């Protein structure tokens, strides 16, 4: 058993859900106990989907255990087909159903549905989310894009593989990469899984080559397509100016196109921003990078070679990509950290003493605890990392976003110098509250603001009980509650605020 508080990845069936939810016309029937539907809200809340994920759960309960669960599964598959009429289905088990003796593959096959029904074997006690997404996509491609005699393929055509639901910035990365390919004159045949139907997967063979944006999801499928359809693939992540340039050169070479005009185009603001004098204070700042392999490697390269930071830590939770991350760490003269235990990450960050952390949602919190600036560059992410604005990591616009993302948590250079020069200035040292609060410690300032807002000269006295009751009000509305109660007491000339007064005021102002 592994003692776990925080997990970087969900179980493998969550990866399968990410592929199913990204696609259209595909339905997933998951043999799972009641409660496993919690996964829906990752999609409806974090990504704000306006539709339920295309997943039917059997949601069996204790009373169903025994032969009943197989019957429930068959009924669920039949009902899902009847209701949603998908072009294809995937079926499988979650961790609990894996322990039962039911056979989703056999049970689904027995129904003889007139569509492809693809069984998934996702070992929940060995593998994790990204592996599940990769395996699901591979099985789908293998089944729906069978090897066929090579069709007439225009050389300047490709598929884009890898974007999924709940992928870090996949939506906007795709827009950037499509733009780059359009500028080069390369036609995009199919994008998958995101936005593709099972029928679209059947057309994968009609492109000359594949572009793999996220190897964590699409490398297996791309390798299979290379073997069976003779399609080479590009795996260079177009992250940062140098990464984007290398990507453009690689796809242009495969398409037999001159990349020159595109490379001489607008490009990115990052190189000039990084050269401008205000950025000199960024030189050699110590950065710790952790995330999935693709994003961690790319962020470390941009940090070191394009912004001039020193990478003092590099790691990943993706064991499948440990080799690549170790090789990259060696380039920075350090040893990679490959772990899915956040306590090990926390210890490594504390030991490396970085001035900036680039990581996942978890590193954001570790950095907060250690008082170090931080930016998020990789899943797992929270709702604020699925922004309304266009915010890619890839392409030339992605490079602009990265510069802002990496630099904003740090203090602007000038401010930093002033702090160093006037360290003991009573109004201007790093221990004071923001200047608009008059440089007093926060709590005192809060009371002062409230007091300043009150013009009446009558003092108001709080009883000890009422003061204690006020402390139970959540801190972010406590100031308002105090102010309202005092105003209420003043207006009625009450000499003492009691617990009753507090609630009388609450009722009065709740209108």
């Amino acid at each position, binding site marked *: *058993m592994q003692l776990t*508080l925080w997990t970087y990845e969900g*179980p493998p*069936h969550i990866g399968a859900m990410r592929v199913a939810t990204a696609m259209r016309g595909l339905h997933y029937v998951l043999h799972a*106990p009641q409660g496993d539907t919690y996964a829906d809200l990752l999609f409806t809340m974090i990504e704000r989907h306006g539709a339920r994920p295309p997943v039917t759960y059997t949601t069996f309960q204790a009373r169903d255990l025994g032969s009943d669960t197989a019957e429930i599964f068959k*009924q669920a598959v039949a009902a899902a087909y009847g209701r949603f009429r998908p072009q294809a289905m995937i079926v499988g088990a979650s*961790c609990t159903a894996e322990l039962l003796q039911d056979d989703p593959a056999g049970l689904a096959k027995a129904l003889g549905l007139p569509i492809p029904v693809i069984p998934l074997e996702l070992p*929940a*006690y060995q593998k994790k989310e990204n592996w599940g997404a990769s395996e699901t996509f591979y099985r789908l491609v293998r089944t729906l894009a069978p090897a066929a005699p090579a069709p007439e393929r225009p050389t300047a055509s490709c598929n884009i593989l890898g974007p999924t639901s709940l992928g870090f910035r996949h939506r906007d990365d795709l827009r950037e990469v499509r733009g780059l390919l359009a500028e080069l004159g390369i036609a995009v045949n199919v994008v998958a899984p995101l936005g593709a139907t099972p029928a679209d997967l059947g057309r994968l063979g009609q492109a000359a080559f594949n572009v793999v944006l996220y190897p964590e999801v699409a490398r297996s499928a791309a390798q299979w397509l290379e073997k069976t359809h003779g399609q080479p693939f590009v795996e260079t992540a177009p992250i940062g100016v140098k990464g984007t340039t290398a990507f453009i050169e690689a796809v242009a070479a495969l398409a037999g196109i001159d990349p020159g005009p595109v490379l001489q185009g607008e490009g990115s603001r990052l190189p000039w921003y990084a050269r401008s004098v205000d950025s000199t204070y960024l030189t050699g700042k110590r950065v710790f990078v952790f995330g999935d392999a693709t994003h961690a490697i790319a962020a470390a390269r941009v940090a070191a070679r394009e912004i001039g930071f020193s990478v003092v830590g590099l790691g990943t939770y993706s064991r499948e990509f440990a080799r690549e991350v170790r090789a990259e760490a060696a380039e920075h003269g350090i040893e990679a950290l490959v772990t899915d235990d956040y306590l090990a990450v926390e210890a490594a960050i504390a030991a490396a003493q970085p001035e900036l952390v680039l990581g996942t949602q978890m590193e954001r919190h570790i950095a907060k605890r250690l008082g170090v600036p931080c930016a998020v560059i990789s899943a797992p992410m929270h709702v604020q990392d699925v922004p309304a604005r266009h915010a890619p990591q890839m392409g030339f616009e992605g490079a602009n976003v990265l510069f802002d993302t990496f630099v904003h948590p740090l203090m602007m250079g000038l401010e930093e110098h002033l702090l160093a020069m006037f360290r003991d200035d009573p109004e201007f040292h790093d221990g004071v509250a923001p200047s608009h609060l008059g440089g007093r410690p926060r709590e005192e300032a809060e009371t002062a603001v409230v007091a300043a807002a009150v013009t009446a000269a009558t003092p108001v006295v709080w009883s000890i009980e009422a003061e204690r009751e006020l402390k139970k009000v959540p801190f972010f509305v406590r100031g308002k509650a105090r102010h309202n109660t005092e105003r209420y007491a003043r207006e009625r000339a009450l000499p003492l605020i009691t617990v009753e007064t507090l*609630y009388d005021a609450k009722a009065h102002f709740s209108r």
Partner: protein
Amino acid sequence: MTALASALPSAVPCGPEIRHERGQRAVFCGLTGIVWLHRKIQDAFFLVVGSRTCAHLIQSAAGVMIFAEPRFATAIIEERDLAGLADAHEELDRVVRRLLERRPDVRLLFLVGSCPSEVIKLDLGRAAARLSGTFAPDVRVLSYSGSGIETTFTQGEDACLAALVPDLPRSADESLLVVGALADVVEDQFARLFADLGIGNVRFLPGRRAADRAPIGPNTRYLLAQPFLTDTARALEDRGATRIPAPFPLGAEGTTLWLSAAARAFGIPSARLAEVTEAGRARAARALAAHRDRLAGKRVFFFPDSQLEVPLARFLSREMGAALIEVGTPYLHRAHLAEDLALLPDGTRVTEGQSLDDQLDRCRAARPDLTICGLGLANPLEAEDLATKWSIELLFTPIQGYEQAGDLAGLFTRPLARRARLEG
């Protein structure tokens, strides 16, 4: 999946129309209760014995709380644990030892069963007894099940509290026990009201600390503060305690009826009750008036979630003038909810259980003004232009009692007010 819906003769003549449904259920499992229980019992730790799915669920449900050194974790079962059972107990001992070394402040440890631990028949009860022996007297170790196959959402709290009951000391003194985790501020208000009424010896289950164990016995009367405490009630009755039947303290009317049931049981004159509750009733009435205009005549649809649905529906219909289209509940305890059911309008459609797609069809056909549902359904229904109120907030927000009646109504009016603003 085919839904088995059948109208059964209801226990309450011409009362609500109670139906049962089976099929796909979009609900949380009992593990979710840990999210608020670990805040309530301040020196308890909750160790789930389960899979990565369980860890992922709690992480998703606990949102940002996971980073404040929370007092819960998952012992993730790995392949080698599945290979042989004997080894699983040694593994568990190792994990617990490591955990308690890291957290010496913990006084009470719950081993929480999950679907995987139950399917492989891992005996957590025995493990808890063994570990209690090892770590006594510093740490007591108890076990309960929060698995999805056994429990729905708030039933996790029921299982947890039921596990605490055998552990309570015995006493023949007359006492009142208020059962169900309430926000501290609500608990304090109720404690003051009971004291003013003259009911002495009032205790709460769960206590705020592991050492805070209410003595119970044949002269203990208990009052349920939450509607989902079936097993806890049974465990209390096994120890000789008697239930005071009452509707649940939601809204002004609910709170008054709940308090008066206790007052009657302890022979407090009704004049005294009126006097003690007068200020609270007046305040609640003022606070509720502000919201009634927005909710009066609005058609409301409840998806099943927490078992709070029936008392909430009673509050919305009687105190806010809302019309009830359907009141879904994951489980219906007829006896515990008898008083609330009796107060629902005749013919109210109460559905126990769920067949998700069929229920969604009914909801879409009815086009309610407000749908109370979980977070997996809320945004999809909003995208279909149906106003929703996400139900989990009703568990994480203080809503019981007089002083919170206005806040409770506000939870339902806010989505409507927001839509009005955005459309204005």
